[in-house]
């Protein structure tokens, strides 16, 4: 390796020229992945749009079965977590190790609150017999396609909840690495790109909430 | 006019629906052939004329030519716009049913077709129509997707379980045309055939009158009609040959060995159970393929079918 004599920081992979290039590449890769995520949810939004156009009454009626208050609380919780993850990135950039760890922990806690509230919402519906698809037994309101709305509801919120779980895992992994002191103003790429992912998860919920809970 | 591509298409028996399509297909074929010959000639000519003569051949630097690029973008663009317009015209034609069209209801199922006339007459896998008169088929499916295709009329449309679709045609002369199912629908997809039988108008009236109003005849006749209409015979032969299910020939009071090893004698109750709950007792060597006819056949109709099966011994 003739031209490989420059000093290499520990985090720099062999095929990159320097940290900037590595950072740029990682960030771009994440953005491309997020585009792909948007298209993935786009499929669900399409199904939503099509069925809402076909059965507008159903969507209005069925939306009343969802608990707007808890939905709103969850929205606030997620927006809060987006703020703390952004603060975590800022802490990393400023070499504030303690701030980084605390902000990551708050983010994880908020994400868990979101999941707990979600679990309560789900179990309440299951008690009523509102299951997805052919297991649907609820008789609270009359509509021949009633189960379809809840199928879409469960698919959209379920796939989103999976993303939240993955997010919790990722942020926990970042937290473990931050405890080992791997991040600094020199190197905070994983913190930044995990933050990007988390913002997207939030953003999708911000669309899901009005589309499902707030139909008038 | 001798067309070079005439051999490609089957005889056109419904010019009202197919004439535009045929002209378009010929046009595209001929223009494509001209281009293909041109490209092939250029390839071969260049390969021979400019073959490498030595390792240090010098080649000119020709990077691009905007006039050429525009030429070979615009000319094909104009041509395909012609093709688009032409195809659109033919397609509008296929979707504009004449007001005086004779209407027949069609049901597709795994694996056959039934045709219902407004007189109440019902017939399986054959649709009889008058010559020289537009006919509209209103189609729906009982189960999965099918597609109704008559190559000689250049018509095709999918048949769906949750909405009605239609095709129309106008056969000019008495005769027969083949109908295919072209949307894959399982085991006997390729046996889901039917015939269009075109009669002279007065013969058609006679034929229709002879069909009665449906549901008539003796129990055995009704049963025979039902096994055709319900598509039983696509899986259960009447001549002893082995299809997807056991043959009807000699079925009555036959000793059957079941998949679980036990044996059973075929009687009314077994046939009834097999129609309403097909998976309950599967004969050894056969798959659990049949769908339940619960709600599709009345008790009386099941009795008619049993009467008919008895006659096949």
């Amino acid at each position, binding site marked *: 390796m003739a031209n490989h004599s420059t000093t290499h920081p520990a985090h720099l992979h062999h095929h990159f020229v320097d940290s900037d290039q590595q950072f740029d590449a990682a960030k771009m*890769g994440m953005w491309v992945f997020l585009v792909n995520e948007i298209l993935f949810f786009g499929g669900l939004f399409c199904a939503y749009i099509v069925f809402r156009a076909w059965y507008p009454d159903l969507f209005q009626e069925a939306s009343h079965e969802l608990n707007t208050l808890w939905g709103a609380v969850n929205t606030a919780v997620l927006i809060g977590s987006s703020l703390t993850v952004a603060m975590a990135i800022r802490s990393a950039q400023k070499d504030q190790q303690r701030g980084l760890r605390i902000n990551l922990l708050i983010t994880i806690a908020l994400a868990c609150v979101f999941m707990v509230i979600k679990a309560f919402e789900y179990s309440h519906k299951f008690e009523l017999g509102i299951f*997805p698809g052919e297991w649907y037994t609820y008789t609270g309101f009359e509509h021949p396609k009633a189960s379809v709305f809840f199928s879409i509801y469960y698919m959209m919120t379920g796939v989103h909840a999976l993303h939240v779980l993955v997010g919790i895992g990722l942020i926990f992994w970042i937290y473990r690495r931050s405890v080992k002191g791997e991040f600094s103003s020199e190197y905070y790429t994983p913190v930044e790109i995990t933050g990007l992912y988390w913002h997207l998860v939030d953003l999708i919920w911000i669309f899901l909430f009005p589309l499902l809970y707030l139909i008038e | 006019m001798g067309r070079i591509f005439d051999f490609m298409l089957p005889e056109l028996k419904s010019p009202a629906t197919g004439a535009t399509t045929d002209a378009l297909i010929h046009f595209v074929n001929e223009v494509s052939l001209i281009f293909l010959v041109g490209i092939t000639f250029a390839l071969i000519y260049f390969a021979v004329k400019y073959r490498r003569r030595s390792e240090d051949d010098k080649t000119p630097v020709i990077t691009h030519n905007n006039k050429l690029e525009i030429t070979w*973008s615009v000319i094909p663009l104009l041509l395909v716009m012609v093709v*688009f317009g032409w195809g659109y015209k033919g397609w509008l034609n296929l979707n504009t049913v004449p007001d005086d069209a004779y209407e027949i209801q069609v049901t597709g199922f795994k694996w056959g077709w039934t045709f219902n006339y407004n007189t109440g007459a019902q017939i399986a896998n054959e649709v009889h129509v008058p010559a020289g008169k537009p006919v509209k088929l209103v189609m729906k499916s009982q189960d999965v997707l099918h597609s109704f*295709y008559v190559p000689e009329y250049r018509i095709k449309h999918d048949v769906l379980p949750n909405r009605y*679709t239609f095709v129309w045609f106008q056969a000019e002369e008495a005769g027969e045309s083949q109908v295919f199912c072209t949307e894959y629908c399982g085991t006997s997809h390729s046996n889901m055939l039917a015939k269009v039988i075109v009669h002279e108008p007065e013969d058609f009236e006679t034929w229709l009158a002879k069909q009665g109003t449906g549901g008539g005849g003796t129990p055995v006749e009704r049963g025979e009609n039902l096994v055709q209409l319900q598509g039983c015979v696509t899986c259960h032969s009447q001549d002893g040959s082995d299809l997807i299910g056991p043959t009807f020939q000699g079925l009555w009071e036959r000793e059957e060995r079941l998949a679980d090893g036990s044996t059973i004698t075929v009687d009314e109750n077994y046939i009834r159970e097999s129609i309403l709950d097909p998976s309950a007792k599967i004969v050894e060597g056969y798959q659990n393929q049949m769908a339940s006819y619960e709600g599709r056949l009345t008790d009386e109709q099941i009795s008619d079918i049993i009467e008919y099966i008895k006659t096949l011994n």
Partner: protein
Amino acid sequence: MATAEVSSNIKKLQVKRFKPAEDPKNTYLTDEKGLWAWLTTVDHKKIGLMYLGAVAFFFLLGGLLALALRTELWTPAKTFIEADTYNQIFTLHGAIMVFFVLVPSIPAALGNFILPMQVGAKDVAFPRLNLASFYIYVIGAIFTFIALFNNGLDTGWTFYTPYSTTTTTSVIWVTLGVFILGFSSILTGTNFITTIHKLRAPGITWSKLPLNIWALYATSIIQVLATPVLAITVLLLTMERFMGLGIFDPANGGDPVLFQHFFWFYSHPAVYIMIVPGFGIISEVITTFSKKHIFGYWAIALSSLAIAFIGFLVWGHHMFTSGQSAVATTVFSFLTFLVGIPTGIKILNWVATLYKGSIEMKTPMLYVFIFLFLFSIGGFTGIMLGSLSADIHLHDTYYVVAHFHYVMMGGTLMALLAGLHYWWPKMTGKMYSEVWGKISAVLVFIGFNLTFLPQFVMGAQGMPRRYYNYIDQFTPFHQTSTIGSYVLGLGLFITLFYLLHSLWRGKKAGSNPWNSRGLEWQATSPPDFHNFDHTPVVIHGPYDYHKPMEEFQLGLAVSHNGHGEETDVKESKVTTN
């Protein structure tokens, strides 16, 4: 060794000439040895080869299934297998060839190997992700194999509802397999886009990017934008089967036409995922073997992007007979014709490139000629199928079957064979037998046309596809087609044998056996673990055959950071001592 000082508007670069060694001591093949080293490698070249092996395996499997189908169709009724078996075989043939062969073949196998070398990078941007995508592919394949041994699959590769929600075969295993497989494709696409943007060597501006890179770039964009929609579609289908969701199955309140929209929103762009990288290979091979500058660089580069873009707007042309709305049908037909234009532009630019060239008919070039002929037929019959009323007659007949084999096999596979023969010396360091190469190319050409030309005729005459039995009048066409498929199979088997043979007995290739100006040929054959033992510097475009070879063998004299920047190294300012 000559040194050159290159300056530009932005930076001054110290440049030195690096002539590649003809008989390298250290290559990526000798670098680490043993099965474990291969299975855990993050080297893009080894991952590319593993993909190539996997794709070859699936191609062999899918090909044998095809031969079984053709054999069964020798007679109008049963020849040797039952209807259900036949239906499962054509389903698997389609699913394997589309998802396991055509989609990953050129990008993941050849692209993985060549892309970083053509942009002068040491590896792709995310090497571990690259390895992960290979294993995701393997896991997807395992899921599909579970279905194969557990009741099979008989829905056709298109999984149309409600057949796919009611059949007794194991649909879920395959849909999950396809779901998993999709991520492999997405990760490859993400990796390529980032690599092309961020890891280019100094001097490789967008206007000096090889057309192969442009093609892979367009492909990656489609992969990233379309594949997630397939993922959500098969996920919904899985759930539909699992718990009767009611979105696609009319029995539960859904709509089968909606499924078709979802499915083709991916699967039509997927056709371009399969063919566009083939276009890239054609541009590389045709210039190398006519020793001439490509004609219409920007026309070819931008038409790839145009195809990628318009390709997203034409999915509805698979559904002219389905019952979609009349407006949609008309618009989709119109847009379909627009996608034909950039494709036509490419073909004519390639033909124009040959004009006044110095043409050498080596095996890769022979495959390019075969490609141009077969793909043109595929294109013209595509125009036919895009027009509304002709499609009503031809839809779901053998005409369609022949059309997509001309495009996918006559197009993608011939391009793949061209690329494989072209880069084989680079990948293995060995030359294959030129004589056998030509013999098998001719056999493939004859066999291919014998197989699929009769299918156009019988399709136009009304022979529907996916038919186990057929009416007697089609017998001669089917039998010709079956004979053709054996010839085609023989040709491909010969290819397999002489390529493998070359690994043991092939002559040493040397770094640049074709005298190409492409950057990948400035590395040794086989390349070093890091591709180049220097950071390459590019002054001329990859098609500047009028410039001397020495000006292509340049690298940074000192370690320098110039990667991924728009550093245009100007030709006029080079001074050679």
